[in-house]
């Protein structure tokens, strides 16, 4: 073997009888020094299990390697089969030869130890450093991943740092042993898009500066276009296709790869925006929001004095027509979800006006679909009880007509016959979200607020739910307020886009116009951060500017920021 890693016919199973319970069925691939392999697949594809089989962390999750070889060339030139290695030997490989980064930075660091301790530990163990030397090395490691004020941050506990910072700490830990192979398991999935760009930028820099081999696991094939050398697509525990990046992206051979490339939303700077615009003559207003502000009191001190307000939403105005989708795009903490919740009456606005075009047939013209279908369905109720709830709430009887409506809606959202008597846990994630959509339609609303409604779903499920939403919109002439952080999704579903930053709309206009011709600096920054198939072999810059605090003293009012026109119906906040 000439490379760094050579995996042959790897098989992994779980439980007491791993042979009968196999989730990885004969995976083979090679990786050379300095090479980056992207493993792409949806949940259940076996991509994470494959990666964790390499450093044998899979053993601790109840997994067993039931067949195949994992030949790994260590720094001293020796080659060993990790599939058969003893735990003692593996301890010398992990951290030193193979480093790893995980998906959830918030839970992947020990909450009771300082960040410094957790980095120093690796230097002391892998390089035999003294405590003092390890501390210096840890500081340098933090500086290397661009954490400002590194010396002080070493003394922080993990909960004092943001997700993006923690993921950089994780990278520092993974690199501390100077590994020859770095495994990154969905390292940016839990992060905001601009933070994701920073992490990807760091990894690309690492690839450029060292000859560390990298395995990058992701569900988003567009994400790896920037820096992977080779791509391996997995489905249900098998490799369906692998090859050089350009070949796989430009000339996919397997239907599943084509499906991932075509059916799944990929960001394309507004080129795939909807053309069925509903604005124009005779469109009826469905929702009109004027000057909406939501503030949360901050209390401090012994007597819980009201010391300030979080200005979560500040002066948000927009209107929405029947049959139209307005995408509200922003990162976590931008106030996009709070806006949605305020429209549904789940938060009390400090000021502002929310008007609907009509009263709706039951006085509730606006309905909502939440992000996580597991959390928004009461696990102890049957589907029938769940669908009946909106009816009961407005004082209607559950009679034959009501049951007919339930059955009709279930069929419309493509749920199987006989679902009424079943419980939510008997359905898949996508089916549960369809159930939530059916529930929201029970009262025949004119506006549907979709709060990250497809974010928790697998990419191909996501595409089908989006198609369903478009069909339903046409059929019932629904207006959608589509709240999301996902630029690729919003490009596909929204007619118009409002970009929110720090509680305010900074830019609003037709989707194609805003995405192709962004005028506000934040919109540009956001778009630049989105990975896409078209931005191939291009690294992201590592920008570490922070989001401003939204906490203001009591009585503070924002200075009015004038709007600038950028064309018909396209406006943005003027910047100083």
């Amino acid at each position: 073997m000439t490379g760094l890693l050579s995996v042959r016919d790897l098989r992994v199973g779980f439980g007491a009888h791993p042979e009968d319970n196999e989730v990885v069925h004969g995976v083979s691939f090679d990786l050379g020094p300095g090479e980056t392999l992207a493993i792409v697949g949806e949940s259940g594809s076996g991509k994470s299990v494959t990666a964790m089989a390499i450093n044998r962390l899979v053993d601790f999750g109840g997994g067993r390697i039931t067949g195949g070889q994992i030949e790994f060339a260590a720094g001293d030139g020796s080659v060993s089969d990790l599939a058969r290695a003893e735990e003692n030997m593996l301890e010398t490989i992990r951290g030193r030869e193979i480093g790893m980064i995980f998906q959830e930075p918030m839970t992947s660091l020990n909450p009771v130890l300082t960040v410094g301790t957790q980095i120093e530990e690796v230097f002391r163990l892998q390089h035999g450093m003294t405590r003092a030397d390890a501390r210096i090395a840890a500081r340098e490691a933090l500086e290397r991943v661009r954490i400002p004020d590194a010396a002080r941050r070493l003394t922080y506990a993990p909960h004092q740092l943001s997700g993006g910072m923690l993921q950089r700490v994780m990278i520092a830990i993974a690199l501390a042993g100077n590994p020859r192979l770095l495994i990154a398991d969905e390292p940016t999935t839990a992060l905001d898009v601009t933070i994701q760009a920073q992490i990807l930028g760091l990894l690309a820099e690492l690839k450029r500066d060292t000859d560390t081999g990298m395995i990058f696991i992701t569900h988003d094939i567009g994400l790896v276009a920037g820096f992977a050398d080779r791509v391996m697509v997995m489905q249900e525990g098998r490799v369906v296709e692998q090859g050089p990046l350009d070949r796989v992206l430009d000339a996919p051979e397997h239907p599943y790869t084509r499906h991932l490339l075509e059916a799944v939303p990929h960001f394309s700077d507004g080129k795939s925006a909807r053309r069925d615009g509903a604005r124009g003559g005779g469109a009826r207003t469905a929702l009109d929001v004027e000057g909406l502000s939501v503030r949360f009191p901050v209390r401090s001190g012994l007597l819980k004095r009201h010391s300030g307000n979080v200005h979560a939403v500040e002066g948000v105005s927009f209107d929405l027509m029947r049959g139209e989708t307005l995408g509200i795009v922003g990162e976590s903490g931008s106030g996009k979800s709070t806006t949605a919740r305020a429209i549904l009456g789940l938060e009390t606005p400090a000021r502002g006006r929310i008007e609907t075009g009509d009263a709706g047939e039951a006085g509730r013209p606006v309905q909502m679909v939440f992000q996580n279908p597991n959390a928004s369905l009461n696990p102890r109720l049957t589907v029938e009880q769940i669908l009946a709830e909106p009816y009961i709430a407005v004082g209607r009887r559950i009679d034959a007509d009501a049951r007919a409506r339930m059955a009709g809606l279930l069929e419309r959202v493509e749920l199987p016959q006989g679902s009424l008597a079943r419980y939510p846990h008997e359905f898949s994630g996508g089916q549960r979200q369809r159930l939530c959509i059916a529930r929201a339609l029970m009262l025949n609303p004119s506006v549907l607020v979709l709060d990250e409604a497809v974010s928790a779903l697998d990419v191909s499920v996501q595409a089908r739910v989006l198609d369903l939403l478009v069909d339903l919109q046409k059929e019932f002439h629904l207006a959608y307020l589509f709240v999301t952080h996902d630029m690729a999704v919003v490009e596909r579903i929204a007619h118009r886009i409002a970009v929110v930053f720090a509680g305010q709309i900074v830019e609003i206009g037709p989707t194609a116009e805003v995405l192709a011709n962004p005028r506000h600096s934040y919109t540009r920054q956001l778009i630049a951060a989105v990975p896409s198939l078209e931005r191939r072999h291009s690294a992201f810059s590592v920008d570490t500017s922070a989001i401003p605090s939204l906490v203001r003293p009591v009585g503070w009012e924002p200075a009015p920021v004038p709007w600038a026109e950028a064309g018909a119906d396209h406006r943005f906040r003027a910047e100083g």
Partner: protein
Amino acid sequence: MSYPLRRLLVFPLVMLGVSVFVFIAIRLVPGDAITAMLGTESGLLTPAQREALTAYFGLDQNWFVQFWRWLSRVLQGDLGISTTYGKPVMTIILEHFPLTLELAVLSMLIAIGIGLPAGIFAATRKDKPSDMAVRVIAMVGQSTPGFVVGLLLIFVLSVGFGVLPQMGTFVPLTEGISRNLAQMILPALTLGTAFAAAVIRISRSAMLDILREDFVRTARSKGLSRRRVIWRHALPNALIPVVTLSGVEFGYLLGGAVLVEQIFALPGLGRVVLDAIQQRDYALVQGSVLFIAFNFMVVNLLVDLAYAALDPRIRFETK
């Protein structure tokens, strides 16, 4: 405001609530204190003598005045005079408390000394025979009430080995360590058994939960040895629930293990309270119950401080 500081501020409020509660509870007891104190001889008292006694003990005032007077004295460390002993309540408590404290400390040492290693051992060998054995022992231990353990211990020693536990006059620790320990070992074992069983169960399940956490996986991915993963990364997290449990149990033990003191004829605080309740000795019940609740809450406060030491999330929490 930090969490420990907040607990410290709530402390006096709850203590006030506790004292009001005890004060009212005691006065709901039927019968009057003078009759209860002197028994049938109280019939021989002249009305004047009865009145003098009532005034002496402050029983002639209304409840509010009695409470106010009592509370202001309590704040100066004066818990009143016991009607049965004819001595200051504080003196009586301080006479009996060292035994209770010693018993509680010994039981806790036994419980943690056995329970924590056993729990961790079982967790690291999940579902193996040794884990099963520890779990069965812990389950049986937890299901055996302390006083039943005590009775069975006495039974096994006396019937099986013909040895009778030393039940003679109690020897304080300061007057003979070996004789004191000989008297204390059985009661401490008795109380320690159920306590140890609880420590085993909670440390095992906490350890198992922690070993499933993402950060343990991270620690392993760094190449740390199995031992270091367990002792440096998992244990400090798993200790948090163990500290809670130990605090609560220790607090209970400071309240006097009434039943065990009864079985082993030990003159601890629990016995004092039991007797005082039966004798309707208002001042003594009030004083000792308040003292016990105070101890209990101090222990809880210490537990909260221990949390903060163990867990930076609590230390820095400001909400």
